C-alpha cells in the first residue's frame, strides 16, 4: 500500500470511528431518555404483543450505549471537537418523542398613539395574530406549506430554546426570573415590526408585545375527538386566519409570565413580553 493510501486509511478509519462514537448517545452530551415501560395497550392486538417484548428487549439492551459511552469517554472530547470543526453533529433524534399536543403561537400587540413626546404611550387597542402554524390547518397543505415549514420550525426551536434557558435559570436560582430569556424576543420583535409596518397609521406604534404559546391535547390512539370540539376549535382558528384580530384593551395590560388564557380546548400561556 502506498504511503498516500496508508495515510488516507488512517484518516478514514478515524473519521468513521468518530462518526460511530458521536452517534452513541452519551449522558451529559445527548442523554437517552430514562428507560420507562411503555403503555401496554390491550385494545390494539399488535401493540399488545410487541410492546411488552420490546420493553423486555430494552431492559437488556439499555446498558449497551452507556457502556460504549463509558469506554469511549477518553476520546469523546476530541471526537466532538473534530466533528464540531466540520459541523457534522451525529444526533438524529427527529420524531423520537413526538408531542401529544397540537401547538400554537400567537403574538399580541398593544397599540398606542403618539402623545406627548418623551412620555410613554398608553395602549388604545390590541391586536392578536396567530403565527404558528404558519399555514392554516383546515386545508390540504401543498407548496406554500413547504416554504412555511421553515417558519414553523424556527418558532418551535425558539420556543424550545426559551424553555431550556428558562429551566436552567429556575434550576439555578429557584425562582422565576425577572428578566426572561431572550430566545422569544426575535419572534415578538419581527412580527411586531411587520405589524407596525403593514397595519398601523403613522402616529400609531406598538407599545407592548406578548408571545403566547398554546396547546391542545391530541386524542390517544383509538379515541376520536368529539366533532363539536373540533368544530369549535376550527371556528376560533378561522377567525385568526383572517389576520390580526383587533380588540379593546383588556383590563390588565401588564400580564406576567405564565398568565393563562383559554380558547375552546386551546390553553394559552404567556411566555414572553416586551415593552417598547
Amino acid at each position: 500500500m502506498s504511503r498516500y493510501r496508508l495515510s488516507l486509511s488512517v484518516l478514514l478509519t478515524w473519521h468513521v470511528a468518530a462518526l460511530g462514537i458521536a452517534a452513541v448517545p452519551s449522558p451529559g452530551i445527548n442523554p437517552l431518555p430514562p428507560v420507562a415501560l411503555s403503555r401496554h395497550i390491550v385494545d390494539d392486538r399488535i401493540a399488545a404483543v410487541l410492546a411488552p417484548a420490546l420493553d423486555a428487549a430494552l431492559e437488556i439492551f439499555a446498558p449497551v450505549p452507556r457502556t460504549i459511552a463509558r469506554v469511549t469517554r477518553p476520546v469523546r472530547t476530541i471526537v466532538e471537537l473534530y466533528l464540531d470543526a466540520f459541523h457534522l453533529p451525529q444526533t438524529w433524534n427527529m420524531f423520537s418523542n413526538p408531542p401529544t399536543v397540537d401547538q400554537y403561537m400567537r403574538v399580541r400587540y398593544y397599540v398606542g398613539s403618539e402623545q406627548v413626546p418623551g412620555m410613554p404611550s398608553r395602549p388604545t387597542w390590541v391586536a392578536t395574530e396567530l403565527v404558528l402554524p404558519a399555514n392554516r390547518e383546515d386545508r390540504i397543505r401543498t407548496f406554500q406549506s413547504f416554504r412555511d415549514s421553515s417558519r414553523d420550525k424556527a418558532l418551535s426551536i425558539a420556543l424550545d430554546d426559551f424553555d431550556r434557558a428558562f429551566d436552567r435559570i429556575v434550576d439555578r436560582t429557584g425562582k422565576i426570573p425577572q428578566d426572561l430569556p431572550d430566545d422569544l424576543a426575535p419572534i415578538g420583535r419581527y412580527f411586531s415590526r411587520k405589524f407596525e409596518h403593514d397595519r398601523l397609521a403613522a402616529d400609531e406604534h406598538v407599545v407592548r408585545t406578548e408571545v403566547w404559546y398554546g396547546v391542545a391535547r391530541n386524542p390517544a390512539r383509538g379515541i376520536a375527538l368529539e366533532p363539536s370540539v373540533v368544530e369549535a376549535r376550527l371556528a376560533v382558528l378561522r377567525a385568526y386566519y383572517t389576520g390580526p384580530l383587533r380588540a379593546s384593551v383588556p383590563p390588565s395590560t401588564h400580564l406576567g409570565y405564565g398568565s393563562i388564557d383559554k380558547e375552546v380546548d386551546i390553553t394559552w400561556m404567556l411566555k414572553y413580553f416586551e415593552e417598547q
Partner: protein
Amino acid sequence: MSQEVRLRNRLIAWWESLWFEEVPPDSYALLRIVFGALGLVSVLELTPVSMFWPLDGITPIPGNGLGIRSYLLGVGLGTIVGWAYFSTLLIAFTSMTVGYMSRPSIVICFVGASFIPSWNHLPLSSANQVLTSVLFCLVWADCGSVLSLDAWLAARRRPGDSREERPAQAIWPLRLIRIQVCIIYLNSGLWKFFNAVWRDGAAVHYSISLNIFHRFPFTLPPSLDWTTTIATYATMFWEISFPLMMFHPATRRLALILGVLFHGGMWTMLELGPFSWMMIASYLAFLDPVAVSRMVSLRLSSPKKDFQSAT
C-alpha cells in the same frame, strides 16, 4: 509465503478494494446534481430573506460564540451580510448543480451550509444536517468530470476529439456517504427504541396528528389506527436494521425500496421540508457505480472505460 503473510496480503487487498477501488465518475456527478438542486431548494425554503437572514429577523439575538454576529449588528452590517450570505449560497448551489467550477462550488456549498446553524439555527431541520454530511463527502471527490458544464467546456476546448475524459474515482467518498446514511438510520432508530411511545406503537399516530406537520386536515378514524401501529413498528425496525441490510445485495435492495416507501409515505402525510427528498437522494450512493454509469451511458451513449462492478 507463510500463512500469516498471505492473510495480511489478503486483508490489505480487501482494504484497498473497500476504500480505493476505482469506479466511474457518474455516481458522483449525479450526487452533485441532485444535492446541488436540493441545496438550492433548501436555501429558497429559508425565505422571505428578511425573515431568516438579516440579524434583525427571526434569528437568535447575537451574543454567543465568537461575537461576529454581534460585531456585524453593531456596525450596521447585519442585513447586508445576511443578504450576501443568502445570495452566495444561491449562486454556489446553482453552480454546483450545473457543474460549473464544480470543485470550488461544492467547497463553498459545504462551508456555507455548515455555517448556517451558527448564523441562524432556528429554521433548520435535520435536512441541513444531512446536506452538510453529504457535501462533506462530495468535497473530496471530483464530481464535475461528467454531466457538467465543466466537462462540456473542456470538450469544447478539444475540437475534433470526441472522446469524453472520464477519470476514474476512488470509491471512498461514496463509502463515507453510505456509512453516514447507515449511522443516521441506526441512531434515529435507537432513539425511537428508547422512547416508550415508539415501543407501544403510538408514535406515528401522534406524529401524523401534529397540527404543525400534518398535510391533510383530518385525522385517521380510530378504526384505522392499526395502520399507524404497523407503521410505527415497521419504521423503527427498518431504521435499526438498515445498516445490517446493507451487507447483502438482496437485503440492500429491499432496505432501499422500503426507504423510498417510508420517506414517500412520510412526505405524503407530513410536511417535513426537504428532509424526505434528501434521504431518498442519498440512496444514489448505494447504487452500484458501474450500473449507474451504464444507465447514464445508455442515456448519453458515450464511450466508456471498462469497470468491474463495485458494490
